[in-house]
């Protein structure tokens, strides 16, 4: 009995500072959708392509981190004020760099990511065409 009381006392001691240090998410639109469904859909589309800065594998649409709540509220309020999603993305990229966006941009650093697949496709097309040409030519030769 005594031991149980000690345990309870210890538990309440541990719990007290945890309660005192609760982080409050007070941003108005962190968990509230916009009334206009079209605007909310626009905001949702943008939120799914923005990185949560604390839990970096998640988008801010998926994350329960308070800073993600702040970012969602920022996105929704700016969309409601008539700002375009790409302008909001640009505003965040100016502050946090490309890292904050999941939608890759073509820059002097990233252009090979877009160019190499296209170049490989073209190369494959040229090689295959040559091979198919030869194949049909051979068949034509066999027929004759």
């Amino acid at each position, binding site marked *: 009995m005594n031991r149980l009381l000690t345990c309870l006392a210890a538990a309440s001691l541990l719990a007290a500072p945890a309660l005192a*240090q609760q982080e*409050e998410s007070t941003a108005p639109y962190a968990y509230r959708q916009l009334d206009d469904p079209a605007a909310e859909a626009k905001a949702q589309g943008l939120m799914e392509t923005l990185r949560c800065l604390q839990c970096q594998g998640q988008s801010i649409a998926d994350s329960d981190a308070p*800073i993600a709540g702040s*970012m969602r509220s920022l996105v929704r309020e700016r969309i409601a004020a008539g700002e375009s999603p790409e302008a909001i993305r640009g505003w965040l990229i100016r502050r946090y760099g490309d890292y904050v966006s999941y939608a890759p941009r073509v820059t002097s650093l990233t252009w090979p990511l877009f160019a190499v697949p296209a170049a490989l496709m073209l190369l494959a097309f040229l090689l295959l065409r040559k091979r198919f040409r030869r194949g049909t030519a051979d068949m034509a030769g066999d027929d004759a």
Partner: protein
Amino acid sequence: MTPPQDSPQVGRWAIWLPLALFVGFAALAAFMLRHPADNTVDSKLVGQPVPQFDLPPALPGRPGLDSRVLGNGKVHLVNIFASWCVPCGVEAPQLQALARAGVPIEGISVRDTTEALNQFLDRNGDPYQRIGADDDGKVQLALGSSGVPETFVVDGEGIIRYQHIGEIRPEQLDMILAKVREAQQ
């Protein structure tokens, strides 16, 4: 028509190529796993003017934080903190030392309550000239800050000169003071 024949010498070596590639890949993976990537997100606003904001007071009877205070000719430290943030308590003695050294420290308390903030300051001391309440975290985002604590050195012109991510540890005090002196020039 006979298929083109590789010379046996080349063939014998080529057979090891996939294994060599695999070993190289495994070595790279092992190396990268032992050296995890640095995931700190630093503000791109260093070297640029501090964004404009006007935060209401976080504590009754104390001034809030208007960005016009920054850029009044003096170098300021802008400390982003919160009562719920454990490392913020860890850096408190260092902030006290900086305040004693005559550096004005302006606080931005993020997503906090008056009651919790008062408890935090009672516990850790209060080095702040002003504390603005950033309840929805907008000013934190405007500054390009991705967490707490963070400390910005803002020069007399209102230009952000340095961003310190994480708590200021005792051994970093001299470095911060050097950044402040640098910003004074």
